[in-house]
């Protein structure tokens, strides 16, 4: 009986070890693969990965765009700064080369409104490297990794911003010391309502001039 108990204990500890190992492997592979790229709540067509490379610099940027209210806002798996009222644009940078990544940017198409640029350490992968800066500028949403630089196998926290504008595509870039690459990333496009408004104003002005 005693030997039987010892045997079953040994088997249990073996099982625990295997389960623990599998859990660790799953966690590591999750961090590598980047779950944001396959987030089931992301908008179809605007959830995926983009590879950037130039010389010895290379990185994968995972992205996902969430319709209003679809990004978690429970403070356990995510924080939506718009409280579910706007589209959430989320990005995560994974360096894949030997050189560190120091900058990332998502282009903006005027006159879209992007705001609430913030970092979410809770969504998809817990932790990640905090960027030195992540801000909305006039022509892009721009992030830097300076202290520390973003080096493989580390990855960034989820970088996000919100907008009333639905997604389209604009140039997105990644760079390090002397190398950079430009591809496309999801970004808000000007709202149809805004465009219609501008057209209406233009038409009104035209009519006034004609009168």
């Amino acid at each position, binding site marked *: 009986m005693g030997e039987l108990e010892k045997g079953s204990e040994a088997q249990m500890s073996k099982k625990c070890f295997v389960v623990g190992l599998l859990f660790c492997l799953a966690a590591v592979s999750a961090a590598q693969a980047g779950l944001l790229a396959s987030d089931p709540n992301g908008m179809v067509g605007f959830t995926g990965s983009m590879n950037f490379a*130039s*010389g010895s610099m290379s990185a994968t940027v995972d992205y996902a765009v969430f319709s209003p209210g679809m990004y978690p806002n429970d403070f356990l798996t995510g924080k939506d700064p718009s409280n579910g009222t706007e589209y959430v644009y989320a990005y995560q940078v994974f360096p894949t080369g030997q*050189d*560190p990544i*120091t*900058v990332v*940017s998502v*282009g*903006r*198409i*005027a006159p879209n409104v992007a705001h609430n640029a913030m970092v979410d350490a809770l969504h998809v992968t817990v932790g990640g490297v905090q960027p*030195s*800066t992540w*801000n*909305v*500028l*006039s*022509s*892009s949403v*721009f992030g*830097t990794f*300076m*202290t520390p*630089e973003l080096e493989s196998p580390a990855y960034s926290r989820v970088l996000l911003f919100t907008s009333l504008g639905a997604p389209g*595509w*604009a*140039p997105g*870039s990644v*760079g*390090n*010391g*002397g*190398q*950079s*690459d*430009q591809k*496309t990333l999801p970004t808000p496009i000007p709202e149809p309502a805004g465009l219609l408004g501008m057209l209406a104003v233009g038409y009104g002005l035209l009519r006034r*001039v004609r*009168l």
Partner: protein
Amino acid sequence: MKFWHVGRAALVTLCASALFATHVRADFTNHPLPGNSAGLGGFIGSTHFVTSGGGKTLDVNVDYAVFAPHTFPRGLENFLPYSSPIGTFGPPDPEDYVYAYQIYNNGPAGDGAYDTLIFLSVGIDTKALVGSLGRDPGFDPSEQDIDAVAAFLGKNGAKYYLMISAEEGQEIGPQEFSMVFLLSSPNAPKFESSYVFGALTKEGFLPSPLPTPGAGMAGFVGLMGLAGWKLTRRHR
């Protein structure tokens, strides 16, 4: 009658913008670096960076000049090191080379289709030595040259940030240009991959410190000597 008013207003606006454009262009043609006679032969000039994407065009020139030790024409007292939370630098060593860069955004003034510039990144070999990053506000006599808000020396590059957030700094828009940015190093120059960054990005080559082969060789000889000394001791 109304057409006349509109036409007159348009004419006034056109004249005003032409005057403004002329004013900007006057300083825009300064370019104090490419023809600088004190610069090292082969390392004075300008690199053109141009690219398009997403309905925008980035059209920028980065002028450069490298000055051998003791030849910086404005004197090292005008080398003002950057000091910010992301990078604080001391004064340059008098025995250092001085590398100078200046950014010009060539896009037409007021044209939203042309990109604004956020920063310049000068690629630097990981083995090269960099003493200080700074600028010289008086190198270009213009008072419209835009200073960087911060400079940062990374693992393999030096960056001059024009803007970091909406409140910090100023982007270089079309027909605008930067202050003369400086870098000091004991290493002589070569050309290294570098890039400019706005909403778009483009790589090009700029002068950058070259690690001295002598230093590497000395290190190798030193290591060999150390290995030999250890082997000799072991045999004893």
